[in-house]
Every structure is written in structure tokens, then in C-alpha cells.
């Protein structure tokens, strides 16, 4: 009898191990108050509800890219999903900071978002090509000093960079008059416009600052370019593909946390997509171009 019970228990244990799904950890590599943190929370919410391929979904939010990459990345052994930015990568290639480098070629990229910065001002009477002023930026965004340099070189101006602790602080500084201009990434421009400010894109548009003034800058297309890549580590190809499919699904549905966060649906309930899902070699080339442009020299 005893042997039977033990055998039964062994079978049950083996069975449960054979069917055990792995856990998934979402590691936020950004600050605790920024966009990466909010998107990690949204993925945590959506994937926890789905629980198809993964048993438990964990969220690790150290609020610091150095700790996330230098300290935690190697310690997490289960499948891991994390965001990484081309400007964050660029910053670490200059011997500055903490050397938190991530080679996206060695990870499986499941989502790709290319975005461009906006130049905003509260006073519509001033013109950045003529009226020299102070330009507020998010201090931790590596690309922005170079963008200001591109503006100064193109228009022979001498704008001064002021680095704030996040986009939010820069937006308030614009409206209280501490700075004349700010550079923000979406959806910061919408926030400024809602408060009566004006914004113009800095690249890849006929309305962009450089296109409007017909100024040729080296790599004009890449001015203020920034790419966010969502990477998967410690997973098999099947697991990564399944995760990518799940992420794509929740981005295409309007009733998910990530869709609500990025206000990704129009009034008719159609999902507006800004992400790219089918990753190929061209994405890696664009990533490298963006990192090269953003690398401060």
C-alpha cells in the first residue's frame, strides 16, 4: 500500500513537472515614473490575465537601467521580457554612465517602435531659428544634446540645454517660463498642445523643423530618432514567438491595458498601430543607425 501511494505521488509529481509552464519576468529598464515603467505595468496586467504560455508573470521594477542590466539581467533565469532604447544603448557606448550595454542581436526582438521627438514652445511669437533661448530636455535622454547641437549648427543659433528630471518637469518648466523651448517624445507633445502650447516634429515629416526651413543636416532623417525595442531573453524560439503573438494581439485589441495606456484606438474602436512586429534584418540596421546617430561625441 505504502509503495502504491509513493508511486502514485511520484507519478503525480513527474506529471506536474512535465506540464509545468515557466514563469515570465518583465524587467523594467527605465525609471519608475517614465513610459517604460507604465508599459511594463500594462504588459504585466495583460499577460497576467492571459496566462497561456506562462505560469506566473512577475514584474521587476528597479527604476534604474544600470541595476536592471548590470545586476539583474544575469540573475533572472526564466524567460524575460524587457524594453531597451537606442538612446540608452548609445549612451553606454561613450564610456559614460555605468556601461549597461545590451546587444539586441543576441536577444529575440518581439516589438519595435520608432519614434521622433517634438520641439514645443508655449510662446507662439518666438522662433527657434532666430530667437535664442533655453531648451528643456529630459536629462537622461542621450539623444537630445545632439539634437540641440544639430539645431544650433543648422540655424547658427546658440541655444542652451537644460536637463530636467523627466519629461514632466521639462513641460512644467516650459509653461512657467523657465525655458523657452522643450524637446519631448510622444505623447508629451499632445500634453503640451492640450495646454495651449505648439509643437512641431523634428524629423521624417514635411512639417519638421528642418524640412520646413529647407536645412540640410547630416542624416536629417535620423535627427531625434529614437527606437524602443522589446527584447526576450532565456526563451526558446517557440516561447518568444508565442509571446510576440500575444503582445501583438493585446496591441490590436482596444480593451487591453496596453491599448488604454497608449490611447491606441480611434473613436471607431480600431487599433492604431505604431509598433512593428515582423522583425527582419532591416530593423537591426535601423537600430544601429539610430544608435550611431545618438552616440554623443
Amino acid at each position, binding site marked *: 500500500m505504502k509503495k502504491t501511494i509513493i508511486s502514485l505521488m511520484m507519478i503525480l509529481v513527474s506529471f506536474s513537472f512535465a506540464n509545468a509552464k515557466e514563469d515570465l519576468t518583465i524587467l523594467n529598464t527605465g525609471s519608475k*515614473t517614465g513610459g517604460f515603467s507604465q508599459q511594463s505595468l500594462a504588459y504585466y496586467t495583460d499577460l497576467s490575465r492571459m496566462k497561456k504560455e506562462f505560469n506566473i508573470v512577475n514584474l521587476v521594477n528597479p527604476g*534604474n537601467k544600470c541595476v536592471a542590466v548590470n545586476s539583474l539581467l544575469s540573475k533572472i533565469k526564466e524567460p524575460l521580457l524587457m524594453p531597451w532604447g537606442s538612446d540608452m544603448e548609445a549612451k553606454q557606448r561613450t564610456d559614460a554612465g555605468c556601461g549597461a550595454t545590451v546587444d539586441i542581436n543576441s536577444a529575440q526582438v518581439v516589438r519595435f517602435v520608432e519614434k521622433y521627438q517634438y520641439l514645443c514652445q508655449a510662446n507662439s511669437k518666438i522662433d527657434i531659428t532666430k530667437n535664442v533661448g533655453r531648451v528643456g530636455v529630459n536629462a537622461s535622454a542621450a539623444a537630445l544634446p545632439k539634437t540641440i547641437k544639430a539645431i544650433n549648427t543648422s540655424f547658427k543659433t546658440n541655444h542652451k540645454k537644460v536637463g530636467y528630471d523627466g519629461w514632466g518637469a521639462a513641460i512644467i518648466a516650459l509653461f*512657467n517660463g523657465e525655458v523657452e523651448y522643450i524637446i519631448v517624445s510622444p505623447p508629451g507633445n499632445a500634453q503640451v498642445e492640450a495646454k495651449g502650447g505648439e509643437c512641431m516634429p523634428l524629423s521624417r515629416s514635411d512639417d519638421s523643423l528642418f524640412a520646413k526651413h529647407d536645412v540640410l543636416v547630416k542624416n536629417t532623417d535620423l535627427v531625434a530618432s529614437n527606437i524602443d525595442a522589446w527584447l526576450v531573453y532565456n526563451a526558446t524560439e517557440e516561447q518568444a514567438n508565442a509571446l510576440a503573438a500575444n503582445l501583438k494581439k493585446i496591441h490590436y485589441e482596444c480593451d487591453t491595458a496596453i491599448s*488604454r495606456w497608449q490611447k491606441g484606438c480611434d473613436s471607431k474602436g480600431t487599433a492604431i498601430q505604431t509598433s512593428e512586429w515582423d522583425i527582419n534584418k532591416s530593423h537591426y540596421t535601423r537600430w544601429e543607425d539610430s544608435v550611431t546617430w545618438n552616440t554623443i561625441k
Partner: protein
Amino acid sequence: MIDASAIIIGCALGLFAGLVPGLGYFTTLLLAFPLMLYMSVPELLIIYSSVVTISIYVGSIPATIYGIPGDTASMPAVYESRNLKSEIQVSQAISGAAFGGFFGSVSVAIFCLVMVNYLDTIKYFYSTPLFLFLLTMASVIIIWTAGNKKLTSLLLYVSGFMLGLVGYNPHLDMPILVFTDHMYIGLPNEVVIATLFSLPNIIFYFNYFKLNRKDTSKESYSVWSIYFVNPLKSTFFSVVGFFTGMIPGLTTILSSTLSYNIMCYFTKDPVKRIVASETGNNAGAFSCLLPLMVFGIPITSSEALLLYFMEQNGFSNSTVDLGQLMKHLVANFMVVNVIGLVLAWPLSNCVKYFYRIDMRYVFSMVLIVITVAIMYSAWESYSILYYLSLIFILAPIGIALKNLQMMPLVFAFLISDTMLGSMLIFKQLYF
């Protein structure tokens, strides 16, 4: 108009946050994660303001009776409670803090409601020179009034500032005193506060209660004479709390600490000092929500989590009817404050019962709770060894300095990042 379910949930979470040392609002909100996803925007704001407010009301009670910090912002009450000589003074401090907190909260909420159309003007408060001036003034006042020798306080302040800079500094884009990978995150707040502030205080109190009993003589007193006879002072500390509550990253910690230290300059009466501190603390508990409501910008990590929940439920600061939202929030906030007052005030009559409990059990329990809270945080961040090493290094230092007022050190530790950031922005703006 009155949202009973949100108030009950918020008060229950606030009770928890106020009584468990080192828990914090971020972890408290995370504990209620699934529930928060189904709350409406006004409900979320009510819950958040209830958590902060009730934890302040409740947290000041163990802080005053046993010197046990529930909430970081109750540090002044923790320290000052060692100067309360009798049970009646402890009782006065609890009831005075409850009334002071009520006055601070309600006056700020009414002020915000009346000024709702002009709240946008708080953007002018977010001026770097003004920030820097406020933080410098607060630092000077704290060093000046801390109760140590001035040089000692200055050394503690400098040490705290240096400890606060350890780790990767995003403003300077460089690591400072980083010897292992874990140190990029810096010294965790909960470890520094537990080892250099809570532990020395607990040891001090344990020895104190072994040797002394609080004087049980009856004195005639009236809470009205402590507090309401001087509306000018109460208004002043509400104003201090209102403005300092809006400072990113510091909020109520700065409100309570600055109010306390200003009062230290004027009086040696520990009851009045605690009342001033709690008035500022509660006033800051409401004003810290204004940047989020007006600009959609969170100023603490717990507010970032709140914003996430709010956005999940359709919040957009550009489309929200701030007047309507404020009316709803203030009405519920009044009820929350009445609950806070009802929870805290009657306990002032139970002081003698609290002192009958065997202190060995009380302090052992608190040490266990603090250790569990810290180790949970360590486990969550895959840094158990790092946290343990820090505890073993810092705890003996804290014990050795138990007779000093450690607030300059802890305050400087907490503000160092904001202060350095403001200095660098100031330099970029004007030099």
C-alpha cells in the same frame, strides 16, 4: 457624492501602511493591484488620498507612544516623543496631532476647492531657484534646530548627503562609490532609515522603558489650548505643508520635517513640536496630488502607479473636468479626515493601556516586521546579500550613534538627489 466603498478600501489600506514600518505607499498600492484596475478615476484618487491620510493619522500613534516609525514622514514624531515626560503629554501629543492633522488636511482641501480655477498657477512654484532656496532653507533650519551640537548636525548632514549620492547618478551620468553591481541602485531608503534612524530609536526607547516609566500624574490640560487657540500657527504650518508637499520625491517627508524644525526654533515643548509636524504632514498629503491632477505629472513612484491605474480608467488631464473632480475628491476627503480623527483621537485616552504592554514584545515584534519588510524588498530586487551586507555595516553605526538626533543625516540622505538635480539645473539656467 460620498463613495463609501472607495473610502473603506482606502482607509483599510492606509491603516495597514501606517502600522507596518517600511511598507510605503507604492507597495501598499501594489498589494491592491487587481482591485485598483477596476476602480474609476475619482475612486482611485479617493483611495490614494485615504491611504496617505489614514497612514499619517495612524502612523503618528506608535511613533508618539513607542517611538516606532510607521510612515517615513512620522520621523519627527518618533524622535520628539523621547522628550514627552508624562503619559498626559503623550496623550496631548496624540490628540493634538490628530486635531492638527485634521486642521491641516481640511484647510488645504478647502483652499484647493475654492481656488480650483487658479490651480494652474502652481506651475510658478515649480521654479528651480525657488526649489533650491526651499531645500537650502530647510537644510539650514534642520542643522540649526536638530538638538545636537551644530557641528555634529552639520557632519551628520554631510554624511547623509554623501550616502544619498552613492549609486548611479543620472544627473551626473556617473556611478559614485559603486563597488558592486548592486550598488548602482544606491543605498535603499528602507535600509538606511531602518538602521540609522529606526534601530537607534528602538534601542533608545527599549533602554528608556527599562529604566523609566512615563509620569502618570494627572495634569489638567486641554487640547484646545494646545492647538486651536493659535490659528495663526496652525495656518502657517498648513501653508508650509501645502507647498513642501508638492516637491517631487519628498512630499510629506519634507512637509513634516520642515514644520517640525521650524517649530523647534520657537519652542521646546515636545507636544507643540509634534502637533506642528503632523499639521504640515497632513497638509502635504493633499497638495502632493495637485501636480498629478492639474498637469498629469506624478511626483513620486506611488503617484506614477496611481497615474497608471487612472489612465487605465480613461483619465487624461487635458479632458478632465478638474472642478467636478476636485469637488468630489474634497467631499470624500473630508469624510476620510473625520475617520482619521475618530481613529486617532480616542486613542489618546488609552495611553496608559499601551504602556502596560511588555515592551520586550512590542519592540521584538517591530524589529521582526521591519526585518521582514526589508528582506521582502531585498528578495524582490534579487539583492538579499547586498541588503544583508548593508544591514551589518550600517546597524552598528546606528547603534553607536543612538544618543544623537539622526534626523539631519536621514533628511540629507533623502533630499540629496533632488538637491543635486536642482543645483545642476540652476547652473545650466544661469551660468
